[in-house]
C-alpha cells in the first residue's frame, strides 16, 4: 500500500537539508517520523536525556539553552534540534523548551543515521549546526576572534607527527615494538607509499594474543584492510562525524595522492573541542618549541572569555588567568634556558630564581597585564654569567611579548640589570627604600612587595620576599598610604560617576583606579600586620585576623573588589570578543541600572576605607 504523506513530505522538501534529497528518498522520510505537540513553556528535551530522534520544528519555536541556562540557539520552523545526542551518542547537554505552541516532527534515530550515512552533505549540515551550538555553549571566543570554529580546523593542522608505519610482511612483534617505541596505539601498514591497512592496540589484543598467534606472524592477516581514510583538507568535524558514525577511534589522513600523512584520533578531536583550562595548561606545558608556546598563548583569552560567559567569579577567573599565564611563562623560561645551552652558552652559571611581580604575583591577572618580573641570583655570576642572565632575560621577555604580554613601561623587568640581584643585594635595596623612600622608591616598593616565585630555586625567592615583608618602616607605610589615597574612586559628591570629559576615553571612567585603591589598601594592611600573603583577598583576610582592620571592612572591601573586577572582566571579554584591545575604561551608559547602583556602593566602600586610613596617617602624610 502506498501512503502519500504529502503535507509532511512537502514541508520537509521546503527546508534544508531535506531540500537536497532525491524525491524518492524524501517521500520515505515522513513514515519514519512521529508528530508531537509542545505547549508554550513546556520542556521538550531535558539536559541529560537522549531524546527520541531529530526534532524538526513544524511550526512554533524552541529555545536551546545550556546547563547554565545560557541561550544557545532559537530554533524556528523548518529547523532542528536534538542532533547533538544523535551525533555524539550521548545524552544532550541542552534543555530545549518550546517558547511558542510548537508542533514537532521527530525523525527516528535509525532514519537519521541512514540519512547521514547515505548523504554526507546532510551529515555535514547537522554537524555544522551541532558545532555552532556547541561553540556558542562553550563561549568559544577563539571563533569570534579568528573567524573559524575549532572543529572547522583542517585535519592536516591537527597532525602533530609523521605516521608510525610498518609493512605487511613485518612481524606482529616488530609492529608492536614500533608502536611501543613511538608511544602510539595504532600503526599504519604501508606498501609502496600506499596505505594497506591499520593495526590498533585492540587488534593486537583480539587478533593476536587472544587468538594465540605467535609473535612472528606477519602483520597482513592481523590488520584491518582498506581502512576508512580522510583527505588532509577535510574538516575536523567531518573527522568527528566519521568516527562517531562508524564507532572508530583512529582515522588515517591521506594526501591527494593517497599517501598516508598522519593519523587523527578521537583524543585529538576531544582536545580541540574542550578548550578547557586544564587541557590548555597541559598543552602549553608540553610544547616542545617556543613557536609552539607562542601559538598556544592566545588560547588563554578564549578560556577566560568562556569563564566570563559562564559567570564564574572574578576571583576564580583571575586565578585561572594567572595559572595559565604561569604555564606559558614557566615553559618559556625552560625553553630559553635549553636554547642557551644548545647554543653553547651552557647551563645557568649560578643558581637563580625567576620571580613575577605586581598583579601576576598576586594571582590577579586578567586580560591586561604587563610583564613585571625580576631575577634573584644565588651568587655573583661574574661577567660571563651576567651576560648569560642578560640573554635569558632578553629572550624570555621578547617571547612573552609575542605571547601577548606588553613590556612594562616602567621597565620593571629582568631585562633591566637593576633587577637582577643577589639575595643580599635585594635585601639592601629593600632596606634602603624603607629607610629613605624617594617617590620612585615608593612605587618600586609597591611592585616588589608583590613578589612570587615562578621558576628556578624557590628558596632564593623566599628569602627576598620575606625580607620585603619585614623591612616596612612606618615612614614607608606613610608613603604607601599617601599613594593609596591618591587613587580616588570616580564618584562625585552626589553619587554620580565622574567621567572623562575629553579625549579618547570621553564619557568613561577608569575602573583600574578604584581597583588599585583596594589593592594598595590591602598591601598596607598586610604590611602592618606582618603577613606575607600575596593576593588582595588573602591580605584583607589576614589583616582582619590580625586585628589590623575590622572584619566588616575586610568583607566589604573583598566584595567591592569582586564586583569591580567582575565588571572589568566582562567589559574586557566583550572587547576581546569583538577583536578590540581590552582596556579599563567603562562607560556608565553600558551598565545596567543595578550594576551602576552596586558599583556606586563599591566606590563608597573604597572611599570610606580611604578616609579611615587617612585619619590614621602619621603626621606629615595626609
Amino acid at each position, binding site marked *: *500500500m502506498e*501512503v*502519500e*504523506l*504529502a*503535507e*509532511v513530505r512537502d*514541508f520537509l522538501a521546503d527546508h534544508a537539508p531535506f531540500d537536497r534529497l532525491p524525491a524518492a528518498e524524501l517521500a520515505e522520510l*515522513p*513514515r*519514519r*517520523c*512521529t*508528530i*508531537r*505537540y*509542545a*505547549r508554550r513553556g*513546556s520542556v521538550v528535551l531535558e539536559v541529560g536525556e537522549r531524546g527520541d530522534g531529530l526534532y524538526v520544528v*513544524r*511550526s*512554533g519555536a524552541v529555545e536551546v539553552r545550556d546547563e547554565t541556562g545560557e541561550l544557545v540557539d532559537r530554533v524556528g520552523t523548518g529547523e532542528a534540534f536534538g542532533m547533538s545526542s544523535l551525533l555524539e551518542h550521548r545524552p544532550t547537554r541542552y534543555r530545549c523548551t518550546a517558547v*511558542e*505552541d*510548537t*508542533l514537532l516532527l*521527530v525523525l527516528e534515530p535509525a532514519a537519521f543515521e541512514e540519512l547521514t550515512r547515505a548523504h554526507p552533505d546532510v551529515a555535514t549540515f547537522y554537524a555544522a549546526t551541532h558545532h555552532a551550538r556547541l561553540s556558542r555553549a562553550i563561549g568559544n571566543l577563539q571563533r569570534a576572534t579568528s573567524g573559524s570554529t575549532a572543529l572547522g580546523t583542517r585535519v592536516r593542522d591537527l597532525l602533530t607527527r609523521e605516521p608510525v608505519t610498518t609493512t605487511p610482511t613485518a612481524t606482529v612483534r616488530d609492529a608492536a615494538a614500533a608502536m611501543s617505541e613511538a608511544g602510539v596505539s595504532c600503526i599504519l601498514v604501508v606498501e609502496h607509499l600506499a596505505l594497506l591497512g591499520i593495526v590498533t592496540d585492540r587488534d593486537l589484543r583480539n587478533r593476536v594474543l587472544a587468538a594465540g598467534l605467535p609473535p612472528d606472524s606477519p602483520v597482513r592477516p592481523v590488520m584491518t584492510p582498506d581502512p576508512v581514510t580522510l583527505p588532509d583538507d577535510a574538516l575536523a568535524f567531518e573527522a568527528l562525524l566519521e568516527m562517531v558514525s562508524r564507532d572508530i577511534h583512529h582515522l588515517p589522513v591521506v594526501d591527494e595522492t593517497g599517501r598516508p600523512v598522519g593519523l587523527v584520533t578521537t583524543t585529538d578531536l576531544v582536545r580541540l573541542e574542550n578548550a578547557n583550562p586544564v587541557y590548555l595548561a597541559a598543552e602549553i606545558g608540553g610544547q616542545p618549541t617556543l613557536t609552539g608556546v607562542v601559538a598556544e598563548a592566545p588560547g588563554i583569552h578564549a578560556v577566560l572569555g568562556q569563564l566570563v560567559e559562564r559567570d564564574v567569579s572574578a576571583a576564580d577567573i583571575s586565578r585561572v588567568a594567572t595559572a595559565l599565564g604561569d604555564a606559558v611563562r614557566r615553559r618559556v623560561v625552560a625553553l630559553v634556558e635549553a636554547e642557551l645551552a644548545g647554543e653553547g652558552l651552557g647551563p645557568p652559571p649560578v643558581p637563580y630564581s625567576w620571580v613575577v611581580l605586581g598583579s601576576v604575583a598576586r594571582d590577579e591577572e586578567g586580560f591586561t597585564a604587563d610583564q613585571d618580573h625580576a631575577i634573584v641570583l644565588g651568587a655573583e655570576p661574574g661577567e660571563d654569567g651576567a651576560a648569560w642572565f642578560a640573554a635569558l632575560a632578553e629572550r624570555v621577555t621578547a617571547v612573552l611579548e609575542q605571547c601577548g604580554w606588553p613590556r612594562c613601561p616602567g621597565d620593571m623587568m629582568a631585562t633591566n640589570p637593576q633587577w637582577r640581584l643577589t639575595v643580599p643585594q635585594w635585601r639592601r635595596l629593600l632596606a634602603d627604600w624603607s629607610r629613605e623612600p624617594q617617590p620612585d622608591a615608593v612605587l618600586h616598593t609597591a611592585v616588589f612587595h608583590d613578589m612570587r616565585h615562578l621558576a628556578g630555586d624557590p628558596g632564593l625567592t623566599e628569602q627576598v620576599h620575606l625580607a620585603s615583608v619585614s623591612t616596612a618602616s612606618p615612614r614607608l607605610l606613610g608613603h604607601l598610604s599617601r599613594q593609596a589615597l591618591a587613587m580616588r574612586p570616580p564618584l562625585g559628591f552626589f553619587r554620580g560617576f565622574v567621567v572623562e570629559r575629553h579625549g579618547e576615553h570621553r564619557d568613561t571612567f577608569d575602573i583600574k583606579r578604584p581597583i588599585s585603591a583596594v589593592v594598595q589598601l590591602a598591601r598596607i594592611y598586610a604590611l602592618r600586620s606582618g603577613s606575607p600573603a600575596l593576593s588582595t583577598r588573602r591580605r584583607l583576610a589576614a589583616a582582619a585576623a590580625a586585628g589590623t582592620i575590622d572584619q566588616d571592612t575586610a568583607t566589604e572591601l573583598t566584595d567591592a573588589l569582586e564586583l569591580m573586577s567582575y565588571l572589568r572582566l566582562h567589559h574586557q571579554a566583550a572587547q576581546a570578543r569583538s577583536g578590540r584591545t581590552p582596556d579599563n575604561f567603562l562607560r556608565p551608559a553600558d551598565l545596567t541600572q543595578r550594576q551602576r547602583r552596586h558599583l556606586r556602593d563599591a566606590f563608597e566602600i573604597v572611599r570610606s576605607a580611604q578616609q579611615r586610613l587617612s585619619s590614621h596617617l602619621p603626621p606629615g602624610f595626609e
Partner: protein
Amino acid sequence: MRARLPVLRRSRRPDHYPPGPLRDLAAAPPPPGSTPVSQVELLALDLEATGLDPRTDHVLALGWVPVVRGRVLLAEAEEHRVRPPAGVDVGSSATLHHLTDDALSGAEALPDVLPLLLGALHGRVLLAHHAPVEVGLVGAAAMTSYGARPPLTVVDTLAVEHRLRADVHGEVWGSLRLDAARQTYGLPRYAAHHALTDAIAAAELLLAQVAELEVRLGREVLLRDLSPKRSG
C-alpha cells in the same frame, strides 16, 4: 431514601456481535475512562464521501493514523481510496476532495477496506473532528457488511473544542471547523479534504487540546476528560 436507578447500557459483550471483525473488535475494547490520555491509544480517522448522510451517501476515501503516548505515528498511517458501488457518481462532491470517478475506478471496494480499519481500532479510541459523520458512515458500512454497527469509543475534537471555548453562558465564539480550531493552537494550515491529511490534522489538534486541558485542570488529563461517547 430513594434507591439509585441502575444505569442501563447496551451490552458490548463480544458474543453480542456476529463472529468476525466486529466480535474481534468487541473483544479488544479501549481502556476505561479513568486512564490517563497519555496511556490511551487513539486512531484518528477521516472519511471523504459523496455527502454527509450515512443513509444515502458513500465513502470515497479513508485515512487514519494512530496516536500513541502523545505521538502521532506516521509509520502506521494508512490511506485507502474506495470505489463507490456501481451506478453511484461522485458528482459535485469531487470539487471538494478532488476524487473523480476516473480516479476511483481502480480503487478498493469498501467491504475490503472495512476489516483493515476495524483491525486498526483494536484497543483504541476512535478520534475524529465532528465524529458523527465518521461514526455514521462506518456504522452504515458495517451494517451492510456484517449486519451490526461496530462497538466504538469515540472522542470528537470538535466537541472537545466546544467545551474548551464555551464561556459561562455556554456560548461559543468563533468557528469550530478543523482548520479554524487548529489555528487557535498555532498549528500549521493544511490543504483540507484529503482524508489522511485531515486525520493527521485531527490527531495534532487533539494533542494541542490535551496540552491545553492539562494546564486548565492542573493535572494529568484522563480519557474521561475528553467526554468519550460509546456507540455500536
